[in-house]
């Protein structure tokens, strides 16, 4: 689960991690009021969206007067920002963070992540602050430093020292930076984070260490033990169909194509998308109905697929293992009838009770096409959708 920068900074404050003075603002008036209260010559107006790369997309403006704050806030609020992380459709800005400007001497990079290769928690640091760390790692790997933490004994002081020496923190700020790293680790572990990132971490003219930007993402699997964090979820940042799907325990992700897919199993769902692509079609979504799909779940899944106006055809691909094909067939028939399906539907069933399932489909009186393999199913739906587009 992702949260906004201003929320991440509020959490950091609780862990004694220094952040700039800042105020969360929803309107231009609030932004102006916040800027006035800061009595600072320079103020940053920052778009709050769940995506990185805001600066380059025009979502962060430095203002040197109240007039500039006003015009920046007007420009950014309501604007759609397109960054490499938002996808081509971009994200609308509904919230701002107004922050006091800082006298920046140097920028660093610092993050804690769960590392797959060592199965542990890792700190990543670099003197190349404010840059995309993946790019730094790609082009100058010697500038990226890692410390692997043995979580059974926790972060050790020598690791903190080594990292800070490696990235070149000056002596005057060393103690403050050490405390920050230790507090960041505590924040990470206490809250089951996937990532805590400060980019840039800045050294100010008066040798203070401050988190200028902040990103925190939590492990969704652990939220049952962090009920307080659930309040930070911003549903307006999420896809409405993805929210609806999660209510029905369906795993759904919106894509940009026109063929809706309903599949059991995440791996097979991805493979089905690939197969559609192979035949020249384009999937509208990823949808895993899971192992225990019922008639009701299948109906909900169809509703979600059809709520996407781009969908011009649907491919159902089920490999019934534990899930029986006849149950799925009944669900498909019921859903198609209830929803008065108008787009072509191809159903590929395989596995347990497949003959019974096929019989239910063929006797349903519905205008659906059966397929006996993944290739046949994908090629048929692509052809149907493409032919229709030509007509």
């Amino acid at each position: 689960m992702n949260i906004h920068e201003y929320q991440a900074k509020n959490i950091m404050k609780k862990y004694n991690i220094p952040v700039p003075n800042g105020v969360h603002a929803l309107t231009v008036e609030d932004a102006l009021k916040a800027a006035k209260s800061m009595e600072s010559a320079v103020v940053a107006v920052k778009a709050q969206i769940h995506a990185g790369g805001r600066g380059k997309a025009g979502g962060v403006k430095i203002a040197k007067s109240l007039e500039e704050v006003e015009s920046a806030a007007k420009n950014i609020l309501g604007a759609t920002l397109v960054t490499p992380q938002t996808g081509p459709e971009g994200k609308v800005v509904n919230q701002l963070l107004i922050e006091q400007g800082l006298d920046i001497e140097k920028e660093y990079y610092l993050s804690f992540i769960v590392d797959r290769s060592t199965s542990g928690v890792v700190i990543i640091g670099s003197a190349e602050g404010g840059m995309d760390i993946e790019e730094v790692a790609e082009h100058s790997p010697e500038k990226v430093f890692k410390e692997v933490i043995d979580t059974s004994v926790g972060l050790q002081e020598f690791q903190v020292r080594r990292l800070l020496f490696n990235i070149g923190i000056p002596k005057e700020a060393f103690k403050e930076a050490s405390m920050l790293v230790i507090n960041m680790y505590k924040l990470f572990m206490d809250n089951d984070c996937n990532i805590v990132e400060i980019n840039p971490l800045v050294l100010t003219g008066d040798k203070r260490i401050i988190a200028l930007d902040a990103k925190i993402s939590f492990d969704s699997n652990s939220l049952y033990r962090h009920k307080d964090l659930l309040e930070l979820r911003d549903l307006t940042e999420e896809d409405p169909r993805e929210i609806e799907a999660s209510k029905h325990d369906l795993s759904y992700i919106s894509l940009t194509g026109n063929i809706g897919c309903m599949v059991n199993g995440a791996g097979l769902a991805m493979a089905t998308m690939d197969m559609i692509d192979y035949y020249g079609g384009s999937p509208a979504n990823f949808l895993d109905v899971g192992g225990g799909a019922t008639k009701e779940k299948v109906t909900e899944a169809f509703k979600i697929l059809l709520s996407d106006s781009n969908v011009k055809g649907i491919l159902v691909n089920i490999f019934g293992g534990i899930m029986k094909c006849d149950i799925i067939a009944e669900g498909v028939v019921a859903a198609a009838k209830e929803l008065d399906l108008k787009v072509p539907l191809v159903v590929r069933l395989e596995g347990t009770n497949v003959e019974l399932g096929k019989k239910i489909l063929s006797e349903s009186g519905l205008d659906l096409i059966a397929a006996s393999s993944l290739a046949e199913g994908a090629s048929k739906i692509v052809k149907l959708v493409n032919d229709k587009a030509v007509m």
Partner: protein
Amino acid sequence: MSILISKETKVLVQGITGATGLFHTQQAIKYGTNIVAGVTPFKGGTQVEGVPIFNTVKEAVNETKANVSVIYVPPQFAADAIMEAADAGMELVICITEGIPVLDMVKVKAYLKDRKTRLIGPNCPGVITPDECKIGIMPGYIHKKGHVGVVSRSGTLTYEAVHQLSTRGIGQSTAVGIGGDPINGTDFIDVLKMFNEDDDTYAVVMIGEIGGSAEEEAAYWIKENMTKPVVAFIGGKTAPPSKRMGHAGAVISGGKGKASDKIATLEECGVLVAPTPDSMGETLVKALKNNNIFEKCLV
């Protein structure tokens, strides 16, 4: 022969009285799996399906000599269940549970480091040695006993592969689901090693997906060490970046973990990669014929 499990395996089920645990225990018994014990705290002394239930894994092991455990407990209790099984000296623990917090898995990995227990999963379909032992949630009937090993990060895609093999008359030695989580107990290389050393396995199908670099590492290992043909399929060519595709581990992050990179590395290392999920069976047939072992693999 086979790897990991056989008809000698004595299975303990942790979470045997829950709906999922019970259903799959019934299925496994029907398949012929030797289930010797179940564990559910406070249900010790009772029985389900003729299987004795114990309060602790230790007690169950002492009484029944179970050597492999399968875990069906809910995600919030699963890490504890894995550690309990390891502490009781279990050789192999297969964790089916999906949704375990990742920091719990970090803890589990550290706990297992100096212990002999091998963990498979979590978030996996389990392991099957056809006609001998089925541990997990896979449909037993699609499998045929034979000589091709299968290892996969995905459940249903494994069934798809096995089905494509069985309908072509190609049997399987063992099929192993290593799971879709970012941190798991056993990786591709561990399983490939076992298949390489297993006299009854002549070739391997490896099914990967986007996210992480386990497939690339496996590719390099195969190039250096594998004496048997390996064919692969990688799911997620069309997956967008930064989105988790169902599995917690299936995400392209920072431009890393893309299907195209994995496929390129595998091919560079001499692994035949199926271009589509529908051609996994055909691709294996081609590899078997290239190596003159096709006839040997037919059952």
